[in-house]
């Protein structure tokens, strides 16, 4: 009879509570892996803070901060194999770095450089600005991978707000029909610019959106890197065998939407504070300290190292020769049209009577 709204039970996967205590038994993750993930999270946090500063100093353009989402991004990307692909949106620096995308090029991107999306061999698609469009590219990529026997999964990243776009649903539906090796990784960070999750959709969870398309869904505590990593491992396994999965990672955007945004216009400090208490770094750090495999000295060393890597990447980017308008004519088509040739020539004769 009536399928009442939100009657489907959805249980969020969690291993670590807000204080880093195990709630649900320990998953099989080695100490090395734990430490590696934490280091990536530190790197991500430092990168984010520095990028914000660079932006304020006018050294890079608009930037979309990721602080608060390190567990979701690092945990998910750390579970990937080299041959897997990421189809990101614009807030996934951390996931990209874990999967081999050069930090230098991310800076180039924020500087408005033509080479800012060059993954230099890592399986990372260009940052997508059009919300939802990347999901369809991931569908095609997964399909090509399957057709060519690559044993690779295509993972697309999208936000809670992005799940309202038609493209998102068309992609889920295709994935279901063709049983594609795909994971839809939704970072539900509670906000789409100024619109809270509750006004974005009436569905109780994002995970349950999988039901519309006959694929597997799962919700995970996105600030718990253990939960994200473990769940993502399993999701990838399913996907690799032709069962697409929608993962909803429940997390929080601690900063502004972008450097052009003022979040005090639309959200309360109390809301932010509540989520700061659930900070993903704090949580895994407590767990590592408890486990006795981390200490303050390592911590300081790691932060210093991360700073240094950011500085290096930034310097490399800042010293890369700037893009020139002449260059753009070369990458519209494989071979320039005569119109483009003429226009390119007009550039070089600029200011001079033709």
């Amino acid at each position: 009879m009536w399928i009442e709204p939100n009657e489907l039970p959805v249980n969020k996967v969690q291993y670590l509570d807000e204080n880093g205590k195990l709630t649900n038994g320990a998953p099989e993750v080695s100490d090395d892996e734990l430490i590696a993930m934490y280091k990536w999270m530190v790197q991500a946090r430092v990168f984010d803070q520095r990028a914000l500063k660079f932006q304020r100093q006018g050294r890079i353009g608009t930037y979309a901060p990721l602080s608060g989402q390190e567990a979701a991004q690092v945990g998910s990307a750390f579970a990937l194999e080299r041959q897997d692909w990421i189809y990101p949106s614009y807030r996934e620096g951390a996931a990209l770095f874990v999967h081999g995308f050069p930090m230098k090029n991310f800076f180039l991107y924020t500087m408005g450089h033509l080479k800012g999306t060059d993954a230099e061999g890592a399986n990372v698609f260009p940052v997508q600005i059009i919300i939802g469009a990347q999901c369809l590219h991931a569908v095609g990529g997964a399909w090509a991978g399957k057709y060519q026997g690559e044993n690779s999964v295509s993972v697309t990243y999208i936000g809670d707000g992005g799940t309202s776009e038609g493209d998102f649903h068309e992609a889920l539906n295709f994935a279901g029909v063709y049983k594609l090796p795909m994971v839809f990784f939704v970072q539900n960070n509670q906000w789409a610019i100024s619109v809270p999750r509750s006004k974005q959709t009436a569905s109780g969870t994002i995970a349950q959106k999988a039901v519309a398309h006959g694929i597997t869904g799962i919700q995970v505590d996105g600030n718990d890197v253990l939960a994200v990593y473990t769940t993502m491992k399993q999701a990838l396994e399913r996907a690799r065998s032709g069962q697409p999965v929608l993962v909803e990672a429940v997390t929080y955007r601690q900063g502004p939407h972008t450097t052009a945004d003022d979040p005090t216009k639309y959200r309360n400090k109390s809301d932010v504070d509540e989520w700061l208490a659930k900070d993903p770094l704090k949580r895994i750090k407590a767990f590592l300290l408890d486990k006795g495999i981390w200490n303050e000295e390592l911590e300081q060393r790691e932060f210093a190292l991360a700073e240094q890597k950011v500085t290096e990447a930034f310097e490399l980017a800042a010293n890369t020769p700037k893009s020139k308008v002449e260059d753009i004519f070369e990458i519209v088509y494989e071979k320039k049209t005569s119109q483009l040739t003429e226009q390119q020539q007009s550039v070089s004769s600029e200011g001079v009577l033709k």
Partner: protein
Amino acid sequence: MTAMTMIEAINFTLKKEMERDQRVICLGEDIGKNGGVFRATDGLQAIFGEDRVVDTPIAESAIVGTAVGMAARGLRPVAEIQFFGFIYEAMDQMASQAARLRFRSGGVLGAPMVVRAPYGGGVKTPELHSDSLEGLFLHSPGLKVVMPSSPYDAKGLLTAAIRDNDPVLFLEPMKLYRAFKQEVPEEDYLIEIGKAKVVKEGEDLTVITWGQTVPLVSKVVEQWEQEQSISIEIIDLRTVSPIDEDTIIASVQKTGRAMIVHEAVKTGGPGAEISAMINEKALFHLSAPIVRVTSFDTPYPVPSVEEDWLPNADRISQGIREVLAH
């Protein structure tokens, strides 16, 4: 009269029209509590409530399609597309639905609605935010396309757009939102849609432009006129569809030379139509080929090169030299 920036004039107009007519409803992404990413709708939700200033989910096709449905049932929706580059998502609802409802219903229904969107380059937005795509809509019968170049015009044109009984695409030049203030009457006034404005008269050349290149062209022309004994007529199209043929033709018949400046890419753009129109109606008055100074035929490029890609002062000057060389 109050001195207003364009964004203030738009905000003020929306407020006035919402006060005047209960049927006017604003909808779009982040337009409510946040007041729009450019603050065009700032404060409106506080005044008119969540029922009339509506934050929508992220779904452009739904925003425009919902507006079509509202308009057909007696409301006068003003939908915002956050950046004009995202209009592609709503293309069917724009060009097949809003544009054709009057036609498809045999004249029985209509879609009196406005779709507002910030457009244009030079403000270093991330990619896909800055495209000037008015040419696509010029080629979509049933729509009107309005592109103001000043706070005063923005108010008069937006008022006319909201009261128009046909769907109007209202494109707001991002770069001019806060570029300058102008005296804007608080009282009701309309600027007729479909009529161009002769910004200044001249004898030797007609320059046709609209939206955010109007102040730029004016500056370049001023310089030329100071430095050379030459007189240039500037036409601000104001409405890109339907194009005001009469004003253009009359001017070119007088000056014998025409140049078109727009931020849209050159090939297949609105400049092509204007050139073709002049060819059709005033060919024998031309003493030089019509020059188009536009963006290049590439995707909108990354911020670091956009200034060289757009029709900047140098390229406009170069165009004037060219058209005068004959």
